[in-house]
């Protein structure tokens, strides 16, 4: 078998083995990665940072452990901003029955961090509530667009005293009459709930922004460029962009639109982005190498044939 043919027919399991190594080793080494945030992510950060203190945002948290890699990073970055800017959050989910619990756990972890730094916790019922899971995403989006009071009607959450009460009695939702009373509607998703929400909620007077996994990125981008989305963070790159801006904010020259927006330097801004992004480079490099090797092999064997 000629070299060309060899290069063209590397057994799959060899490739797989190499990938495992490449995806593991760099995790143990700290490698700073230079980076410039993308425009949709900058817009997202700017939009979030311009939400007035004390107002409420509506969050559709439609991710679970299976996309933890990206979505958890998105969620943490978002929550860090809300917590530090004292913005209230109402979390619902139409993506997966587990999503509410996953979100609660994620907030728990962040509160742990705050506790460690001696900061007041981001308190359930007073600062944030979960209205739970809605099995039919379309219906849910429609209901929210039509009448939030009905959509979330009868839903309860737990007060710090541990009693369950109607969510609309909570400080988070007490002033909410319709969806446009939310300062922003944020969709964090790994599935089509992004499109479903846009189709039904867009134009109801509430700004929409999204954090989607790399896969949903291409599908969501048209909505961003058509102005239906105020901001968009896509995949791990989006997470890394946000974490970078959390640290250093939007610096002049980065965006003509936002000018300068402060960050939270020195705060605990490290998340999945910073953890995984370096490793991602190695994996992508491997992918590119594999493609090159394949083509070189083809070229060689062609030459041989000729």
């Amino acid at each position: 078998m000629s070299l060309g043919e060899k290069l063209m027919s590397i057994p799959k399991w060899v490739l797989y083995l190499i990938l495992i190594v490449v995806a593991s080793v760099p995790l143990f080494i700290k490698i700073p990665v230079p980076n410039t945030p993308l425009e949709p992510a900058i817009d997202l950060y700017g939009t979030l940072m311009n939400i007035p203190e004390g107002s409420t945002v509506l969050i559709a948290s439609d991710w679970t452990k299976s996309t933890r890699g990206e979505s958890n990073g998105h969620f943490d970055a978002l929550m860090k901003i809300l917590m530090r800017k004292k913005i209230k959050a109402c979390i619902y989910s139409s993506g997966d029955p587990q999503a509410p619990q996953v979100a609660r756990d994620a907030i728990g972890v962040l509160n742990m961090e705050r506790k460690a730094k001696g900061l007041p916790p981001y308190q359930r019922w007073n600062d944030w509530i979960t209205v739970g899971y809605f099995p039919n995403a379309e219906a849910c989006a429609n209901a929210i667009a039509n009448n939030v009071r009905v959509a979330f009607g009868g839903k309860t959450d737990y007060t710090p005293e541990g009693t369950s009460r109607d969510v609309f009695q909570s400080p988070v939702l007490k002033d909410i009459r319709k969806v446009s009373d939310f300062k922003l509607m944020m969709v964090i998703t790994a599935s089509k709930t992004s499109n479903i929400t846009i189709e039904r909620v867009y134009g109801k007077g509430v700004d929409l922004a999204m954090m989607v996994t790399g896969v949903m990125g291409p599908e969501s981008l048209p909505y961003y460029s058509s102005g239906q989305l105020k901001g968009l963070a896509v995949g791990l790159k989006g997470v890394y962009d946000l974490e970078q801006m959390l640290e250093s904010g939007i610096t002049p020259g980065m965006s003509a639109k936002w000018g300068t927006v402060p960050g939270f330097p020195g705060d605990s801004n490290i998340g999945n982005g910073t953890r995984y992004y370096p490793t991602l480079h190695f994996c992508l490099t491997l992918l590119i190498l594999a493609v090159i090797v394949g083509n070189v092999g083809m070229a060689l064997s062609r030459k041989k044939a000729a």
Partner: protein
Amino acid sequence: MLSQVSSWRGEQYLDTGWVPPAFTLLLCIWVLLNIRRAGTGKDLFIRRIAGLNAIDEAVGRATEMGKPVLMVPGLSDTVNAIVVQALNIFSYVARIAARFSNPILVCCYSAPIFTVGQEVIRDVYNEEGLGDKFDPDSVRFISDRQFAFAAGVSGILLREKAAATFFMGEFYAESLIFAETANSIGAIQIASSTESTQTPFFIAACDYVLIGDEFYAASAYLTRQPVLVGSLVGQDWCKLTVALTVLIGVLANTIQLGPGSHKMITQEKRDAKFVNVEGGPRPITPDDTFMSQLFRKQSDPELVIERPIDPTFVPPADGGGE
């Protein structure tokens, strides 16, 4: 002020709100009209679609090897047109397989899909007069959990060594799992995802791929049913309508913005009313153009209607109770 607005007016028809219903109606008319045309025996042309011709070949090969044909009608939560469409194509596949008495396997993602699948495939066997040959277990419910389904199907693929695979319908991340697994056992693959984001992976890993609405064209092409052919022609008219609308919009906007020298405006439309621009004229933006305002309805906050209040109604001031 505006209580004289007739209740026939309709919230969704205010301002330029009539555009969405009108446009949708037009599209529906195109489709129905052409279905009629086809019904009246007018034979309408459809161009050939690469990939569909491969179906017979694929099934034939499976028969030679005496191995099953595996089909997955997508991962829709419940039955919808996409599933039905996929099953229409599969019934064509199943018919060939039945004639060669070749084993088939339909893996269903949800119970409703399973229900329809049973129905459709059994009908095919009955129509072929092979009702007794039909094995109810050839249409299976695997799991309605995305990756459990993926694991299950690849398990079946590897164990049954399927010779031809058809993945058609709504596919998401798992598309590549199926495609690569099938590839690893050397099966012929014909695939199609209504999710444009998944198509590239099918293209990379499968032998034949139906892109975009070639999927919807497929059954018309295969069965030549007048209704389907007609509707396909109608869909073309719809696409042309959309294309034309976009084109007109492009030209209109280009002209309105003032080619060569940017126009200024002294009036702008706000809350469905034209008002003078504060602080003198400003450069016109794409949002000020006729076409874009035609496509974005504005609502007038001053439009209020007085209605009697239900005596038993308690306003939800306390926030609770609803």
